[in-house]
């Protein structure tokens, strides 16, 4: 139960309860405005009935030819609104727009290899690991330098334009590339 609405520039004044959480990065103005000035339909907010922001997703469309796809740049839910399937709803909107408006072949996202909660959630939504990207993330700087923390899984889910599921593979976890090889 939440209002699903577009992400607006002025939401930057309202997103503190979400962005003060350690897992959510606050970027400069130009980051948000870049996305909103190009892919506003891939950015949305879930809002509580009392007007508080609960979470948001920021995405884009990119790639060439068969690689044309929707990409989830940031997906976040404030701690007090977790376990309400909000992420699922925002992902389904992003998939729908990537499919119908942008006619992408798939949707992809990056996630820390250590973030098992998120990984199993995405698997539940139909995503699978396409490849492992070495040293994609910076260390969290919390004194635990582990490879898994810095490596990312590139996870993908095919859309209706890819009925033969060419954009995914079964053994993606073993397929390792370096961060330089991905855009």
């Amino acid at each position, binding site marked *: 139960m939440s209002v699903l609405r577009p992400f*607006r520039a002025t939401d*930057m004044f309202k997103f*503190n309860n979400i962005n003060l*959480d*350690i897992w959510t990065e606050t970027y400069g*103005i130009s980051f948000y405005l870049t996305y909103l*000035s190009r892919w506003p339909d891939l950015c949305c907010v879930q809002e509580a009935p*009392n007007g*508080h922001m609960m979470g948001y997703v920021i995405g884009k469309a990119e790639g060439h030819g068969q690689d044309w796809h929707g990409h989830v740049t940031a997906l976040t839910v404030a701690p007090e609104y977790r376990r309400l399937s909000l992420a699922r709803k925002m992902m389904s909107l992003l998939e729908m*727009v990537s499919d119908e408006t942008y006619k992408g072949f798939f949707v992809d996202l990056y996630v820390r290899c250590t973030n098992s909660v998120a990984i199993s959630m995405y698997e539940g939504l139909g995503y699978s690991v396409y490849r492992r990207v070495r040293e994609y993330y910076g260390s969290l700087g919390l004194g635990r330098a582990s490879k898994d923390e810095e490596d990312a899984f590139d996870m993908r889910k095919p859309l209706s334009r890819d009925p033969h599921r060419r954009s995914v593979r079964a053994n993606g976890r073993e397929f390792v590339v370096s961060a330089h090889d991905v855009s």
Partner: protein
Amino acid sequence: MSTALDRQIRPIYDALDTQSNKSAVLACNKVLKKQPNNALKALALVRLQKVEESLLLADEVLAKKPTDDGVLTAMMHVLRGLGRHSDIVAMFETAYKQHPQNEDLGTQTFFANVRVGNWKAAQQVATKMHKQFQDDRYLYWSIFSAVLQANDMATPEALRPVLLKLALRLISSGNTPSYFNPDRFYVHLLILRELEMYDDAATLLNHEIGQKICETSLVCDEIRRDIMKLKGACKQEGEQAKVKILEKKDRNWLEFLSLLDATFWDIASTSEPASEDVKAAVTEEIAKTRKVFSEAATVDGLKDRSGLLALLELEKRTKSHGLWTDACEIRMMAENYFSQFGDKACCYEDLLPYLAFEGEELEQWTSFLNSRKSFDTPDTLQRSINVYKLLRYNLTSAELTPELELARAQEYIKVYLDGLKFGVNLPDTELQPADDFAILVGHAYVSLWKLTGEESHLQSAAATLEYASARSKQSYRIRLLLIRIYHLLGAPALALDHYRLMNVKQVQTDTLSHLILSRAAMWSLAPLGDITYMSECMEASQIYMSNSTETAEFIARAFSTERYSQIIDFIEFEDRLDNSLQRDLMKVEHVRMRVAHEPLNAELVDMELIELKFIFDRIHHDNRDFEVIPNYQPRCQPSFNEQTLPLKPPGAGWLSAYLKVYIRAFQEASDLDETVEDKLLIGDRPKPSNDPENQLPLRERLVKKRQEEIDDLSEDEKLFYEYTLALSEWVGPYHDYVRPPPSALLAEAAKSNDLKPGHPLKSMAAAANGSATNGHSKKDEEPPAVKESPELIPKFFDDMKSRFDAVISGTALPSELLHIVATTQEAYLLFALETVRFKPNSIIKQYKFGQLAQSFKDLRVKASSILNEMSTVLAKLGEEVATPDGRKAFVQASSSIQDSSGFDHDFVLGVAKKTTDARKQTYEGIAKGLAKVVKNHS
């Protein structure tokens, strides 16, 4: 550009790209011998902060009416650096006029207008481009510029519909219909909505393509909902919502709201009392809607809260419309809701709107909740947290006695400590599941402090919350409470530590810096050279610079990508940040600290005068986020935020009062008058505001007191405000008499400028003319007769002294004491500022101001002695607080938390040491600062 030239220019670009501005200038000079390229040199100079030199070069380049792409781009950066945005527009317009066939120049001219919000001109350029290049995109640029012009505050009311109608006519002239893409469709809908042509809008929306667009575009769907509501098509919306809820399983809360609105439409849409027939019909609708929501609730089970919550909302509205409903219905639904979703953290805020129970209902609800306390698993822990919060919410004033609150605080501590076991194995990046119990402890102790006035409760709160913060390092909510409590306890350094650990950055500095920078001057040790708070102000203000350089660019970009739906929001965002209340509150704080930190010379006075005058006309937006501070206080009490503010938060009235105080003082102390200021100004002036109030002459506005200002000030600040008015009224005439005439000043400026070889001041020619008429005639008048100082001035210092004494002997908090001290110090500094001009003996002799100088001296001596006394008392207090005895008192004060076991004595002692040390540091620092201020200005 020839290849040879390109080769020569490349190193300049490289040097600019790598910020090696000095080598860029050298490289330019080399090339310049053969081929002039002053634009790049001007750019390098701007970046080197050599404004005057750059200005000159820039004017030279502009005079040649450049059309070359490279030159135009470089000049755009130069002029932006100089703040001359209107010159950018003129430059591109001139270039485009010379090459009307050049599409790129047209686009650049359009963007230049867009960046400064020049919608009328932008519309004209776009229209011209559309005629010339026949591209629908330019048509929409022109259409949307007209819409934005209609939206602009500066556009006369009568012109607005004309512009919108023009825009509408233009839409129908396009080669493709508006539903060619969602953003053009959005523009079309927006215009129809503004013109209140709802039926036309509905026709578009009901069209197959219109429907399709709204399905995938949230922006269009949002405006669709709005239009349907305005059109009064609520019932139709309700029917659609019903289908979406039941068949498509849509769980967007907006659909539920649509159905709710439709259900009560026949009663809610008219102000007439409803007839029995209408009531009966609505009751029938309610029953139908109840069925829909119940069905959704059954289908979803634990998966989604919408159905059950919508049922609650339905009952609430039924009751508020005076229709029959069973008295216990809402309570039973709330219980049902709690049973299903009580283990979700948001259950508390979900239920709040429905819990205004009283009497028997409240008793039953309370006993229901009491039976749901359980701490076996993490899920039941979350449920219990909700139980405690919900119980607290409905406490009545009778239940809020010190004894009962203390018992509650101890119970919260107990369950908090128990609950920690569920988080033992969590990594330190995770929040502790029991955190909210610690937050409740904080609330209970703050409430106890409010009830009893005893500071010890705040100390207990600090100790518990520090304990919780150490266990849940990422909990910003715990830190928020600590920030507030440490300020109350006179330990601002600790508040600042917690604020920094929250890692507030970028746009968050606008919404959150109030946490540490509200009236920061009162904590600042600036007189001692400690610029901590001044730097915080500067850092937090970075975002406004990014806003001015970046946001306008994205408005242009949204035109170029045809994302019209974003443009109004971008403009609003830019405006809210540019005219942010917090921005200028920080500016005033910075000025207050700067005055205490630096010598009061012309450089400070003139610069701040100009900057504050720029701010004065702004219409401010308050973006400060207070909502983020947790609040679990009972509904009969003020919120935690309100309870823990040391003073009323400064608002627009406060800002206006303080701007007036400082502008008046600087104006008097300064030699700059308006004519001089205009000549020395480099960048564009801010756009004048349209507020009729602002049309009055500045001098009149500065002495006008407004109720809004008075309401915003603390009692001490009110006295201070009166004091400053009396002071400037008294001293003003002497300043006016002694101030050198503008011509002398400009000549001075020219002279100092001539010292830099070969670069005369841009506007000197005009200035020299001015001097002929604005001569020395003034000095022929007699100097104004010297008057005694108004009684209010010495009285102010006496009043503050007695306030200080009263607070010292009472039980007031350190924050109140420091506020009094800071206000007195500020009054002293303003006195120094207002009298510095009359210090030199030559002035006193020349103008026969001997008697005036004596009055100043008497006042200064009086004020100094009061400040010195305050300083001595504060220093003594500082010493007392950080002794072992002081810490022991703190630990004893926190005995209630130790009784509840689990808290070890050493931990509490540690917090005590930190707090008392921080307070000592503040007291001693402020005491020394007072002495220094007195010494500097005696």
